[in-house]
């Protein structure tokens, strides 16, 4: 077995709601090998999205350890977390979260440009990625001019611009119709090989869950490997 690219030990995450404390992750352990597709399933409110946000350093956790591509997230300060987000992870949200005032090409290129790529290189790489997701002809269109599926594909291209070793996708087909979901499923399945990355996918979609090399069920704050 290869060394895991993601390794969580004894992970605890709670939310307080008034006097009530919700144990979203309760001494949870999780591990994933490089280059794999991992799907995480679970009922609504089970903490799947929170776990993904923890892996992407968007959310802090209460205790335990999270090691992602060699970064010990519990030890990182705010500035280092920004570097981590820039270099290690690419995020795809359920809602596309594209910048409305920027074209598809600019949306994809921006994280690269902000990460220090020369402008011409960032735009060139963004064009290649739009090609990869089949949207080269829509490069100069704005999010408002794209369909839901197209926006998600742009979001995937954006997640790949800095060549992250890990892509985290949180229910990317959640807002899409059946046809768009199918297109996206096919794209996500090709992703680890095409972009040489590891994909962690949170989904409700049982069809989408089948693309994973491995699947986990998050229930009661613990992960259960189901495939």
């Amino acid at each position, binding site marked *: 077995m290869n060394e895991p690219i993601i390794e969580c030990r004894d992970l605890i995450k709670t939310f307080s709601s008034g006097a009530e404390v919700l144990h979203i992750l309760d001494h949870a352990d999780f591990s994933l090998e490089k280059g794999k597709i991992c799907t995480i399933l679970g009922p609504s409110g089970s903490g799947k*999205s*929170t776990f993904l*946000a923890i892996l*992407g350093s*968007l*959310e802090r956790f209460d205790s335990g350890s999270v090691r992602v591509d060699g970064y010990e997230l519990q030890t990182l300060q*705010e*500035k*280092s977390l*920004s*570097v*981590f*987000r*820039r*270099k290690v992870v*690419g*995020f795809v*949200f*359920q*809602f596309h*979260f*594209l*910048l*409305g*005032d*920027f*074209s598809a090409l600019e949306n994809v290129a*921006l*994280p690269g*440009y*902000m*990460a*220090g790529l020369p*402008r011409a290189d960032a735009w060139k790489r963004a064009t290649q990625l739009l090609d990869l997701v089949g949207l080269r002809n829509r490069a*100069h*269109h*704005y999010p*408002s*001019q794209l369909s839901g599926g197209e926006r998600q594909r742009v979001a995937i291209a*954006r997640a790949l611009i*800095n060549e992250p070793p890990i892509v985290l996708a*949180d229910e990317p087909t959640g807002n899409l119709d059946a046809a768009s979901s199918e297109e996206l499923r096919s794209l996500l399945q090709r992703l680890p090989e095409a972009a040489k990355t590891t994909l962690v996918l949170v989904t409700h979609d049982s069809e989408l869950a089948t693309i994973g090399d491995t699947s986990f069920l998050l229930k009661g704050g613990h992960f259960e490997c189901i495939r």
Partner: protein
Amino acid sequence: MHQIKARNLKPLFFLGLRFLFGKPVQNPKAPAHRVRHSAFWGAVLGISVSIVPLYIVLFVSNGMIQGITDRYLETKTGHLQLALPFTLTGETREKLQRDIAGLEGVASASFEVDGIGLAASSRGSTSAQVRGLDQSIVADEGFKKFIQTDGGTIYPEKQNEAVLGRYLARALGVGVGDTVTLITLRDAHEGQMLPRLSIFRVAGIVSSGYRELDANWFIVRSEAALRLLNPSTAYAFIGIKTVDPYGAGLNALASGITDQLSQSGFSGVQGFSLRTWRDIERSLFASFSSTKSVLILIMAIAIIVAAVNLASALTTYVIEHRTEIAILRSFGVSSQQTASIFLLGGAATGTLGCIAGSAVGIFISFYINQILSGIQAAINFVSRLLAPASHPITLLNPDYYLEHIPISINWDYIILIVGVGIAVSALVSLVPAIKSSRIAPAELIRHEQ
């Protein structure tokens, strides 16, 4: 530690400008989409508009003050003034005059004796400032440069001739060739004074372009003034013109003249005193300077108001675009970079405003005389249409202002105004910039829920 390096400023500028100003032109490949944020163009306009009057006030007041100062120096006070005892003999005075004129840095030295009198004509009488000028004034380039003649000569050729200031001539209702009577005082027995009446023919009517200075001039030859004016009320002096009246060398030259007086044996003699032009009209120049300072202060407040408008637009933008900022944070833009985007955006807004305002302000200042003439002509035209009997108005009353404003563009002021404008814009952008840096990427998750 991650530091923002100069080469990393480009993407921050790119984002700042795009966030705040949108896309400058319609995208030809996506013609239905247009991105513009009018609030920031409004902020640019606000800063521009606030800067324009500052330039106009600065350049006009500077030009006005410089023009008035030049006129005082060249036509009245001289650059240095050596007060003389009234009783000094002509021979001694002329020797002193020659000695001073021969000093390095001195351009000319002219004798003058001033006093007051009452000028009268068949139309009426008014007070007159009698100036007894030396013939050498005719050769003085500075005097000739600023003295305009409405007729006749600028210097009386004969003892019984006088040159009048334009407004004195108007008040007396006289022209060139007419006669006027000058009433001065002469000593009588036992300390009594009696009026002395002298008749003069008007040889010329002149103006310096600044009424406050020349309104009551009654110019006669110095010999006539010495004869007519009462020694107890008259003031005799040598007006000295230097090659650089505004330079730091003026005081050194004054010291040189004092030494010359000492060598000539006049040191400590009562009645001699030397003053620079700054001392002679100290209160006048102090008044100009304080008026200018107050005007600049008022104009500076307008810039601060415009900057507050920019801060408000930026703060509103940050509040309304939390999600977009959280998106940036989610792909690794640090809080420091986020703050820099808005700081640079604010500074860019200020820069655009300052550049536009400077261009308009300098243009208006440069053509202020033509613009004022145009406005004056337009107002008078409309007034005549509405009320044919109305008197034409004059925007710049020549009683207090020069009839033509001399404008000179001062690059130090331009650099100062633009620099302060940009700095103030960046400063007021600090609060919204810090606010933006506190937006966490986790807000995206809340947004989804």
